[in-house]
């Protein structure tokens, strides 16, 4: 069994080596297709996680002008509590916020000044009252317009729109890139099959079964797809890690979940291998079915 596997595998590797640049093109296109797929999937999951975090509560996070003392902060919180629809007001100290970020991303904060403002988290009982509370808080003299108000309701709305966008545009992109990658793998194997027609005929005449001829081609497609998947997996891993740091450093909003890591790499490699084998199978089936 192992001996047979070694034979089929060595034939496949030899075929990839012979196909040269065509194989490289198939690997690269698969990598791009899977990177788009993985990236969109990761973004979709990240948005869903963020939506789950936001829950169904209606909240505003109001920035307080820099240099405001504790009395001022209390006075502003008391003012918020008097507004219609306000259920709860919580002070979010800027030092606390900064400490949490430094714990998680120690590299970012090294030598940097705390960029966060003091904030008030205001929970509101109904979505209809959010705009009124927002308008009142914007008029308060201690409100810091440059840092603004984070509106979870608005964020939720934006995220839902983004989900919808990712869903439709992403599906289209994934279809197009998968079809491109699939066609390229199909063509690579098809060209290999056509250029080796005489060889395949000879193989048949020396008693090679359909399986003995087909499996190296399937493995060729599978290996090309898997290499594309591995490339895409590592690229996605690096890209999400970089983006995550970037976004956290500048906007302090965490867009995605954890980086895809090894799970993502393995999943994309498996998906690439399956795609490659499928396309190679389709390509070789057409030819082998036609010859005796």
């Amino acid at each position, binding site marked *: 069994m192992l*001996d047979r596997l070694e034979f089929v595998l060595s034939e496949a590797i030899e075929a990839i080596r*012979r196909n040269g640049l065509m194989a490289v093109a198939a690997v690269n296109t698969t990598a791009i297709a899977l990177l788009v797929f993985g990236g969109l999937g990761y973004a979709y999951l990240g948005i869903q996680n963020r939506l789950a975090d936001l829950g169904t509560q209606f909240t505003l996070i109001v920035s307080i002008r820099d240099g405001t003392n504790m009395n001022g902060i209390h006075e502003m919180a008391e003012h918020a509590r008097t507004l219609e629809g306000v259920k709860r007001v919580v002070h979010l100290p800027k030092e606390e916020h900064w400490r949490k970020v430094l714990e998680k991303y120690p590299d970012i904060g090294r030598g940097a000044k705390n960029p966060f403002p003091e904030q008030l988290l205001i929970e509101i009982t109904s979505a209809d009252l959010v705009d009124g509370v927002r308008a009142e808080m914007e008029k308060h003299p201690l409100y810091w317009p440059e840092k603004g108000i984070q509106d979870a309701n608005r964020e939720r709305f934006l995220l839902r729109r983004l989900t919808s966008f990712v869903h439709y545009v992403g599906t289209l992109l994934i279809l197009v890139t998968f079809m491109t990658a699939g066609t390229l793998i199909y063509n690579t194997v098809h060209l290999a099959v056509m250029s080796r027609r005489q060889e395949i005929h000879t193989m048949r005449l*020396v008693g090679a079964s359909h399986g*003995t001829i087909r499996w190296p081609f399937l493995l060729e497609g599978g290996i090309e797809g898997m290499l594309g998947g591995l490339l895409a997996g590592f690229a996605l891993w690096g890209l999400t890690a970089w983006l995550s740091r970037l976004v956290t450093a500048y906007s302090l909003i965490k867009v995605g979940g954890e980086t895809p890591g090894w799970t993502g790499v393995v999943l994309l490699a498996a998906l690439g291998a399956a795609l490659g084998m499928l396309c190679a199978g389709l390509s070789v089936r057409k030819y082998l079915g036609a010859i005796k």
Partner: protein
Amino acid sequence: MVEFQGVSLEYPGNVVALHEINLTIRQGEFVFLLGPTGSGKSTLLKLLLRELKATSGRVMVQGRDLSMVPEKSVPFLRRQIGFVPQDIGLLPNKKVWENLAYAMRAAGHTKYEVRKRVPEFLERLNLLHRAGAFPRALSGGEQQRVAIARALINNPVLLLADEPTGHLDPETSREILQILDDINTRGTTVVMATHDMPVVRLLPRRVIRLERGEVVSDSVGLPEDANA
């Protein structure tokens, strides 16, 4: 060993390739299929390899009606028949020893068996010193010997050779014929298709002459009227 019972074959467009062929080839025989291009020699060999199916009649090999062999069993049938194609058909990207090894591996032999048997066959056909060469680096005679070695590597009971001397000089043709005769002496049935009368004259064996898809004579050595 081989029997053709009223075998006819028509290609699409009512082109008759073989007409009512009746033949018996016994085990251990050496048979020349002699005839000009288009006489049906290669078609006859293709029927034995199940590359083609007879339109009517029966082709039997070792008592098996080839038309009854299911498609998936055809490779197993071919492993019992060694074939030297007209175009030699060596795998161009494989070295000499790899060509032989592939035929063995395709037939399900292990790497160990390949390592043991390939050098034996290369030695037998005086090719051991060319084991690492690619087919393009070989002379016509050497290529033909590799093709014969490949056809024999799985110990077939029947060896079919389609114009094995077709593009060789007389000296090399004689050498190839001698090899095929040796193989026959060891017990393998040999059927060789050729249009080359001087080659047939070199070896006094059974000669089946074909013309326009029909058997016109069946004799030991060339018949009197075939001296043209």
